[in-house]
């Protein structure tokens, strides 16, 4: 139980920091604490949360998926094109198309990584440009603007379910699924093992290749779902959609305490990371800081949180293996 303590504490610290920021900004500008603004932040964070759950699974296996934003944009464009070509398409086929296309693109990453034993960062770097270019080829470089987007796609993020915006409900469902998978399912626990020590995982009889495939396919599937929601929310599809967003996704994971070296990270932490970014982005305009500061602040936050991560992960290591370290030195 002692092992779980630092990780737990870290998440509480992050939560406290978020609460302090919300309180401080709210004290200066009460509009920040209104229900309306809370809804805005939740809506803005929902798509990021969906992407972060996929990225979390990949990061846990000691991999990384840089192609999520390109996958999101390509799937979004495919859905928009399908919606334009077949105006009678229902919501279920559209959702299935988004998930299937996203999962296929993710599985392609997984195939290259597992089958050819290529480093994930390089593979997804390559597919990132490849998918981005494919959008241009599919759309001919044209924008699909508001009036051409299928009304069901546009309507989806504006629906309310059980009194909550559909975007938030979708994100909550995805988070619940990730929690279930990573906590109570063997497949999910295996992801931790694959990233913690790949060689040991293989020796312990874990089908590492299949688990990696699962992680990349799920990351792709969630990116596809996010693509449909993104196109609906902003009512536009174009080639440069969400360009560079993969770094925000990874940043949210890192802030939430997910280790880039694999094997460490929790759904709760990742959600807090998303919330942190959402709160910061919403707070800056309220306290009248130029939006130009957003990126620089995000950079500082990432650096500070990785330094804190490294600190909190190093101390338990010393306590567990004092003798082994002595032998090695």
């Amino acid at each position, binding site marked *: 139980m002692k092992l779980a303590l630092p990780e737990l504490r870290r998440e509480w610290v992050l939560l406290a920091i978020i609460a302090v920021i919300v309180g401080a900004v709210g004290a200066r500008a009460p509009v920040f604490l209104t229900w309306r603004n809370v809804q805005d932040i939740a809506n803005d964070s929902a798509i990021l949360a969906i992407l972060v759950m996929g990225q979390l699974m990949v990061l846990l296996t000691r991999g*990384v998926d840089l192609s999520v934003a390109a996958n999101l944009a390509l799937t979004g464009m495919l859905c928009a094109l399908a919606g334009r070509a077949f105006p009678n398409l229902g919501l279920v086929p559209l959702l299935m198309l988004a998930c299937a296309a996203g999962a296929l693109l993710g599985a392609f990453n997984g195939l*290259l990584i597992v089958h*050819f*034993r*290529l*480093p994930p*960062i*390089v*593979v997804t*770097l*390559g*597919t*990132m*440009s*490849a998918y*981005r*270019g*494919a*959008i*241009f*080829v599919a759309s001919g*470089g044209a924008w699909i603007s508001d009036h051409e987007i299928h009304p069901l796609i546009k309507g989806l993020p504006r629906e309310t379910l059980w009194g909550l915006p559909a975007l938030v409900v979708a994100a909550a469902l995805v988070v619940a699924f990730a929690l279930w998978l990573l906590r109570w399912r063997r497949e999910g626990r295996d992801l931790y093992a694959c990233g913690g020590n790949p060689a040991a995982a293989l020796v312990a009889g874990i089908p590492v290749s299949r688990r990696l495939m699962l992680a990349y396919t799920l990351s792709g599937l969630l990116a596809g779902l996010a693509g449909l929601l993104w196109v609906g929310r902003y009512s536009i599809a174009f*080639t440069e959609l969400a360009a*560079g967003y993969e*770094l925000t996704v*990874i*940043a949210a994971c*890192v802030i939430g305490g997910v280790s*880039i*070296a694999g094997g460490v990270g929790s759904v709760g932490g990742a959600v807090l990371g998303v919330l942190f970014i959402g709160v910061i982005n919403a707070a800056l305009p309220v306290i009248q800081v*130029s939006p*130009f*500061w*957003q*990126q*620089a*602040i*995000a*950079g*500082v936050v*990432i*650096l500070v949180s*990785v*330094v804190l991560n*490294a600190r909190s992960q*190093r101390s338990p290591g010393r306590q567990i293996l004092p003798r082994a370290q002595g032998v090695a030195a």
Partner: protein
Amino acid sequence: MKVLGGWERVLILLIAAVYLGFGLGIEGFLSPYALADSTYNVSEKALLALAMALLVVAGEIDLSIAATMALASLAMGFAMRAGAGLPLMLLAAFATGAACGWLNGWLVTRCQLPAIVVTIGTLSLYRGLALVLLGDQAITGYPETLATWGNGSVGDLIGVPALIVPIEFAVLLVLALAVGLFLHATVPGRRLYAIGANPVAARFSGIAVDRYRLGVFVFAGLMAALAAVLLTGRIGSTRPNLALGWELDAVTIVILGGVAIEGGRGSIAGTLLAAVLLGSFTFALGMLNVAGLVMSMIVGLLLIVSMVLPSLGGRVRAAWQRHRMPAQA
């Protein structure tokens, strides 16, 4: 020392194929002026790639290298606005580049953080600072000398008009030679391989691993500053989005050049050849009016294929040998 390994030969063949294929297909592609032109769009990126090759060989990576360029160019612009002469402007650029690189290296060595996370953070930070300092403005009005460095040819400089090799390309060749000699023929260079292959073993064999890492990061900052000076001279202005996304191009060149992303393997000859290959290829596609995004898609696919091919080749060879074994026995 073997200068040209198997992969470098493949690259030479590919370059020959590009020049022959496009030379026959496109009128004027093989004229000396077109050849000189084709080096412009790749010279600065190749400078980044040289530094990136050293980093990757040593097991590190710098994703903030293009953002460093933006800051270095900005520093040069601000120095000019403050009334500094050309030497002081250059000093400002190189000092900024070195400072950015040093911060990366300090975080990686002192806080023991993975370079990819650190440089994702500093990418955000440096680019964000450029945005904060410059907003949506641009700095223009650079001295004539800078424009000459960026656009001129060696012939103009030494008074032999027939020599139309661009200055940028000449700078690249000289630096490639210097970096290549350093990496392949000096003790510190060979030690970078040892560090990349096994940092712990390198440390135990008496190499000051952290000092080398820090040094390589600072070198990357300096190279970014040099690339920034040349690029700023060539386009004549500084904007916060200068060289946006170039870090990925530099990584692509390095990987295509046969440097292993896990560190410890690779050559400068391969990196330079990959840069020339990409430069000529994209220039030819440009002459064929292929859109920029399709080009980047092709480059992404090229990156993946270049990694899959050796693996496929190995498999085919293994299968062939299995097939022949019984016959020999």
